[in-house]
C-alpha cells in the first residue's frame, strides 16, 4: 500500500478594515441595503477614475510586514478581465505583475504543539466583486454592488502545508495576526475572510501531484472539510489508476467538493496594466523627504509602529508560566495577553491560573457585553492586579473580592480605595490568628470542656467538630472585631482541631494500653 503525501497551498482574501472602498469613497458596510454603498466608480460609470485609498495601502503594508514580507517600494495595478454580471467594469483591478509584497513567512504552532513555517509567496491589493442574487421563482438575477470594489489583501502561500489540521492552525494564526494589527476583522460569517485551497497528493514526497483549486471557502470548518475531502477523493482516483484533473472546485454545504470548471478550458484573463492608476510609490525614512506630496506613505514608520504580534505574545506568555497551548490560544484569540502580561508585571505575586480564570470568567464576559476591548477596559490591569494580589494574599476575603470588582467597574474607584473606605482589609497574619485561636480554645476549655471531647464514631465526630468549629469561628469573629480573614482562619482552625483530635486519639490509645 502506497503512502500518499498531500501538499496544500492557500490563497487568503481578507477585506481591509477601512471605512471606504479601495478606489472610491463609498462606505463599506456589511448587510447594508442592497446597492446603497455604491459610488459612481463602483458602478463603472464611464469616465470615473480610481482613487487609491491611502488607509487601505497602509493596512496592506502593515499586513505584509506582519507576515515578514519584503515590501516593494514600487508596485503597480493590473486589470484582470472576465465578464461577470456582478463585476461591472468587466475586469478586476489587482496586482499581478508587480505586487505590493513578496517572500514572507508565518510561524505557527501546530495542533501537536510543534512550531511550523509557511512561506508567503506574495501579498497583493485587489478589489472585491459584487454579489449576484438569483430569484429562481421569478427567473430574475439581481445584483448588489455594495461589496464591489471593497479592498482586499490577497495572501498567497507557497505549497508548504501537509495536512488539513496544519492548514487550519496556519489560517488561525494569520487571522490572529490580521486582527492584532487591525487590518481585517476576519469575520468569515460576514464574508470578510475567504480562503481558496490548492490541494494535490503524490506518492513521491519530492514530486508535486496535479492540483485542484477549491474556491471561496467562506466558513472556518470548510477549510478542513474541503482539504480532507479533496485529499481522500484524489487518493481514491490515483489508487484506481486514474488521473486528477486540474480544475476549479467548489465546496458544498455538506462538505463535498464539486467541479466548477476545468482549468484547461479556463479563461485567459488578458492581464494588462491599469493606465488610470500611477505606480504605487512608497517611501522609506531616507526617501520620505523627497516625496512630492504630503500623502506619501513611509513604510519604515508603519513597520516601527506595528503592534506586538501574537507570536511574540505567545513567547512571552510561555516565559511567564507553563500554560497549556489551549489557554495561550484562548488568551490570544481574546486579545487578553497584553492586559494579562501588564497585570502580572505589576503584581508578580499573584496566582497565574487564578488570575487568568478571574479574567476569563468575570472580565471577558463583561467586556464582550459592553463591546469593549481590553485597552478600553475601565478596570486597568494594575488595579485588577492589586485586587488579585490582595485576594490571593488573604488581605481581603474572597467573597469581598467580587464585591470590590463590581464596585470598581461601577464607580471607577480603585479597588485599594474601595477596600480602604469600607474597611475590608482582613488580618492574615498567622501568629495573630493563632493567638486568637489559643485564646478561644482556653475559653472553651474552662467554660465548656465537653466540646473538646471528640467521640470515636465517625459520624458523631463530624457533628462535634462542626459544632466546635462554628463556635470557635464565631468567638474569634467577636474577639477580632470581624478582622480575621475568614478562609485563612478556617484553615488554621481546621489544622488545629485536626491536631487536637490526633492528640486525643494518641492519649486514648496510650491510656488504653497502660490500663
Amino acid at each position: 500500500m502506497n503512502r500518499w503525501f498531500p501538499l496544500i497551498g492557500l490563497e487568503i482574501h481578507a477585506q481591509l478594515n477601512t471605512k471606504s472602498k479601495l478606489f472610491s469613497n463609498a462606505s463599506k458596510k456589511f448587510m447594508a441595503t442592497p446597492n446603497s454603498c455604491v459610488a459612481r466608480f463602483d458602478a463603472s460609470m464611464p469616465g470615473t477614475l480610481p482613487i487609491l485609498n491611502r488607509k487601505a495601502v497602509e493596512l496592506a503594508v502593515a499586513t505584509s510586514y506582519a507576515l515578514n514580507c519584503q515590501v516593494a517600494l514600487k508596485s503597480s495595478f493590473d486589470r484582470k478581465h472576465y465578464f461577470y454580471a456582478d463585476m461591472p467594469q468587466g475586469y478586476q483591478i489587482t496586482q499581478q505583475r508587480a505586487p505590493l509584497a513578496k517572500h514572507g513567512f508565518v510561524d505557527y504552532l501546530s495542533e501537536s504543539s510543534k512550531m511550523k513555517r509557511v512561506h508567503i509567496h506574495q501579498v497583493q491589493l485587489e478589489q472585491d466583486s459584487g454579489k449576484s442574487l438569483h430569484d429562481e421563482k421569478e427567473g430574475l438575477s439581481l445584483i448588489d454592488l455594495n461589496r464591489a470594489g471593497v479592498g482586499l489583501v490577497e495572501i498567497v502561500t507557497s505549497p508548504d502545508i501537509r495536512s488539513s489540521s496544519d492548514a487550519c492552525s496556519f489560517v488561525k494564526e494569520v487571522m490572529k495576526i490580521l486582527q492584532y494589527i487591525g487590518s481585517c476583522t476576519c469575520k468569515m460569517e460576514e464574508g470578510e475572510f475567504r480562503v481558496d485551497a490548492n490541494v494535490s497528493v503524490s506518492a513521491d514526497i519530492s514530486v508535486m501531484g496535479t492540483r485542484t483549486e477549491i474556491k471561496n471557502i467562506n466558513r472556518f470548518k470548510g477549510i478542513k472539510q474541503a482539504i480532507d475531502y479533496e485529499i481522500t477523493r484524489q487518493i481514491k482516483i490515483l489508487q484506481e489508476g486514474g488521473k486528477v484533473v486540474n480544475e476549479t472546485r467548489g465546496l458544498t454545504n455538506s462538505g463535498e467538493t464539486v467541479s466548477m470548471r476545468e482549468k484547461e478550458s479556463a479563461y485567459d484573463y488578458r492581464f494588462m496594466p491599469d493606465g488610470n492608476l500611477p505606480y504605487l510609490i512608497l517611501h522609506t525614512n531616507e526617501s520620505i523627504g523627497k516625496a512630492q506630496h504630503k500623502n506619501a506613505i513611509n513604510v519604515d514608520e508603519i513597520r516601527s509602529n506595528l503592534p506586538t504580534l501574537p507570536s511574540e505574545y505567545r513567547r512571552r506568555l510561555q516565559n511567564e508560566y507553563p500554560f497549556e497551548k489551549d489557554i495561550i490560544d484562548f488568551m490570544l484569540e481574546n486579545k487578553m495577553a497584553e492586559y494579562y502580561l501588564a497585570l502580572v508585571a505589576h503584581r508578580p505575586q499573584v496566582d497565574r491560573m487564578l488570575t487568568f480564570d478571574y479574567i476569563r470568567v468575570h472580565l471577558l464576559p463583561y467586556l464582550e457585553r459592553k463591546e469593549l476591548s481590553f485597552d478600553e477596559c475601565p478596570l486597568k490591569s494594575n488595579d485588577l492586579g492589586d485586587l488579585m494580589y490582595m485576594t490571593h494574599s488573604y488581605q481581603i476575603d474572597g467573597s469581598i473580592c467580587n464585591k470590590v470588582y463590581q464596585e470598581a467597574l461601577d464607580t471607577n474607584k480603585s479597588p485599594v480605595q474601595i477596600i480602604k473606605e469600607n474597611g475590608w482589609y482582613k488580618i492574615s497574619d498567622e501568629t495573630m490568628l493563632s493567638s486568637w485561636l489559643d485564646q478561644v480554645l482556653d475559653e472553651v476549655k474552662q467554660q465548656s470542656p465537653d466540646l473538646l471531647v471528640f467521640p470515636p464514631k465517625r459520624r458523631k465526630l463530624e457533628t462535634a467538630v462542626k459544632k466546635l468549629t462554628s463556635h470557635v469561628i464565631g468567638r474569634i469573629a467577636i474577639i477580632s472585631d470581624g478582622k480575621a480573614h475568614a478562609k485563612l482562619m478556617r484553615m488554621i482552625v481546621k489544622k488545629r482541631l485536626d491536631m487536637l483530635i490526633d492528640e486525643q486519639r494518641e492519649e486514648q490509645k496510650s491510656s488504653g494500653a497502660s490500663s
Partner: protein
Amino acid sequence: MASNELFRKTLIQVRELLKHNKISPEDLLTVCQHRMRETSALNYFTNAVEKHDPLINSKIDLPLKGIPFSVKDNFYTEDMPTTCASLMLENHIPEFNATVVEKLHAYGGSMMGKDNMDEFAMGSGGCESQFGPVRNPWNYSELEVEGNDDFYVAGGSSGGSAAAVAAGATFFSIGSDTGGSVRVPAAFCGVVGLKPTYGALSRHGLVPLCNSLDVPGIFTRSVADSAFVFNILKGRDVNDPTTIKQQIPNSRVKPEEDVKGMVIGIPKEHYIDGTHPDIRAAWDKAIQQFSDGGATVIEVSLPNQEYVQPCYRVLCCSDVASNMAKFDGVEFGHRAREGDFTEELYTVSRDYGFNEKVKRRITAGNFFLLEENYERFFGKALSLRRMIRGDYANVFGANSAAPSSGTPPCDVLLTPTTSVTSPLHSRFTTMSDLGDGHEEDHHDLAGMPEMDYHVTGINIAGVPAISVPVGLSKNQYGHDMPIGLHLVAWEQQENKLFRAAKFLEQESNFQTWAENN
C-alpha cells in the same frame, strides 16, 4: 460693428467687448444660436442645449461669463445625453459633469451643445458617427451650389468640435486627443487645436479611449484664446489620479510675440513622401519666418518615429478592449432583449451597440492581451513607448542621462500637422476602405499615415502640441482648403508652444472660415 457679426471675433475680443459693456451675454447667445441654425447642415452637434444657464445674467464678473462653447460628446454632461456618437449609449444621460465641463460652467461659460464625433473617438475623419458624418464648413456651400452632395471631412475624431468653432457657432470647444484627434480636425477646419501635456487637464468624466494617452484638447480661432482656455482648465483634480501634481504655470501670450533666441527643431523623419507640395511649401516658409525672426532652426532626429503607429495601435486597441468591457448591457450600455443566458445578453447587446471599427479594435486588443501574445505585442509596445518618449526627451534636452549630442536643446519642434488637406468625404471613404476588400481591417490597424503620421508620437511621449492654421492650399477641384502646422514642446512647456504658435499666427495672417462667411 453689427452685433450679428460677433461670431467673426475671437474669444479674447468678445471678452473685451463684454467687459466694456459694448455687448451683453444675451447678444452673444443670440448670435451663436442664429449661427447654429444657419450652419446646422454641418452636423457638428449631436445634441444642442435648449435651456441656457442663468449665470450669464449674473452680476459676478467671471472669466468666461456668457461665452458660448461646446463639448465633444464623450465628456459627461449632467442631465444632458452623452452618447459618444454610439448606439451603445444613445439614451445615456449622466448625473454629473466632467471636471472640464464643471470648470467651464463655474467660470460662467455658456454651453451650446455636444459635439459630434467618431464613435467612441475611434476615427480620423469625423465620419463614423451614429448621428451621421460631420461636414467641414470649408467649401460646403460651394459644393452644394455645384449640386454635389459630397463634402469635405472635418477630421476626427473631434470633428464636431473643430467644425463648430470654425463655423462660428461657438467661441471655443473641448475635444479629446488620443493620437491626433484634436490636431487633425483643427488642421482640416482651419482652427487652432491644442493637445496639452498628458495630465495637465483632468480626464474625470471623459469616456476613455486609451487611458494613458487621452487628454482633453482645446479648439479656438486664435492662439491667445487657446492659452486663455488652457489656463482655466489646467490643474490637479482629486478625481483624476493621473493629473500632474505640481502647479503648472500660467501661459501668457503677448499681443506681439517674437522668437528671438528660441531653438526650433525640424525632425528629419517628418519629411515624408506623399506630403502635399503646398503643405511642404508652408512648412518651408514657416522655417524661414522663424529663422528671420531670430530663432535658431536646427535639424533633429526622432529615430524611433517609424515605430509610432505600431506602438499606438497595440496600446490603443488593448485599452479599447478593456475599457469597452463595461458596456455589457448589465450596468451600462444598450441592453438587448433579455437573453436566456447572461452570455447571450452580452453578445447581442454588444453586437448591436458597437460599430465595425470599435468591434475590430476590441478584437485586436483582446488578441494582443492574450497570455501567449502579451510580451510579443503589449510588452513590446511598452518598450517602444519608452524609446519614443526618449527621443523627445533627447531633442528637448530633458534626458539628463544621455550624453550631449552637440546640438542645443530645442524649445519647440515644427512639422506639418497632416500631409494632406481635408479630403472629400467620397475620397476619404475610399481611402479608409482602400478598395482592397479585406484590407480594410489591415488599414484601420495600420492607421492613415496621411493624417496621423506627424501627430501620434506626441501622445505616446505625453508632451504638448498645437496645430496652427497658416494658409490655404488649392486642390484639384479648385477649392481652397486650410493647412495646419504642428508645434511640439516638452511636457508642461505650453508657454513655449504658445509663444511660437502666436508668432506663426501673426506671420501667416490666416483668416478663419468664420471671418469670411
